[in-house]
């Protein structure tokens, strides 16, 4: 019974999750080369765009896709060492423009982990009440027969409440995980159509792992279309 419930729960979980959007009736298996454009850095996190781009290249190459990286390849072409391969700048430009498919990425989140020390103050609101009772002198009266009756008159004279609150201070350490979020789009350069798009985010103890898993999660549905 528990297994059945777990299966229903996971099915529900899967069906609720964000799914990529695909242009219908497009043959993704015809895609051989994808040009990766530079990803802008997330706000003030310098180098975040480059980190994501390198991870995208890694994941797509693992899928068996031929990759041209728009960001670094032109600079490499200019290097004298590449002239040995016989590729010229103009030939490289042709190579880029002849590839009809471009992958664009936008970072929606890019946060490294944080350790925060939170001071916790516990206030104990205790109080003590002091009651001072004054017993008057004994009053002696006589009844009809003549017996003496002694009685004391008790009166409450003063009540004092003293606040005895105490403040305890301690510190708690909180760990905020690394978090990476991204949106990816595969665009057909020939007509500007967006063929495929997906959005994904992931958290991890390490930023490297968050980047790797986020890119993997974002591009995995594309792998199923390309192969």
């Amino acid at each position: 019974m528990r297994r059945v419930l777990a299966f229903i729960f996971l099915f529900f979980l899967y069906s609720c999750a964000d799914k990529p959007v695909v242009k219908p009736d497009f043959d993704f298996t015809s895609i051989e080369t994808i040009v990766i454009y530079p990803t802008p850095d997330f706000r003030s996190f310098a180098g975040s765009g480059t980190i994501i781009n390198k991870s995208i290249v890694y994941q797509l190459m693992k899928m068996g896709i031929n990759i041209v990286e728009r960001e670094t390849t032109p600079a490499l072409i200019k290097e004298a060492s590449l002239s040995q391969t016989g590729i010229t700048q103009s030939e490289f430009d042709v190579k880029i423009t002849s590839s009809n498919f471009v992958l664009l990425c936008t970072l929606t989140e890019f946060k490294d982990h944080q350790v925060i020390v939170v001071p916790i103050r516990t206030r104990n609101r205790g109080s003590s009440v002091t009651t001072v009772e004054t017993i008057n002198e004994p009053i002696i009266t006589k009844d009809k027969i003549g017996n003496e009756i002694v009685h004391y008159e008790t009166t409450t004279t003063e009540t004092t409440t003293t606040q005895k609150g105490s403040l305890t201070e301690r510190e708690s350490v909180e760990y905020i995980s690394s978090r990476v979020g991204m949106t990816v789009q595969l665009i057909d350069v020939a007509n500007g159509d967006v063929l495929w798009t997906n959005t994904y985010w992931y958290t991890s103890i390490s930023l490297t792992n968050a980047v790797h898993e986020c890119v993997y999660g974002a591009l995995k549905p594309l792998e199923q279309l390309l192969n």
Partner: protein
Amino acid sequence: MKKFPIRFLGLLAALFLNIAIAGETNNDDVNILINKSIMAIQNKDYEKALSFINQAKNVNYDNNNYRLTNSDDSTLAEIYQMEGQLLEILGKKGEAISAWYNCLNYAKTDALKKEAEVHLKHLRD
């Protein structure tokens, strides 16, 4: 005969007070272990961090897996969240799924519930 209920009540009150103090001590122990785990994560010693988290989990349970104290569920959810992330980074996928499932069970905030769901889906795919 009449004194019995009063004595009994006194005994109950003492027991309750004792449990309350024990619960507070356990919660302090949990916080210390979590702090130790965070320090180990800072040093990238994930195995050690996981051992502290496992200790923190066991503070609240006896040998028969019976919950001893009423430490709040949000702390337990955070413990399972850390356990899930540590197991993932250590490559223990199956155990990580179990930890995230527990995290989802105890999570009180929507953000943590969503995070657990994302991790569960990611790990099962």
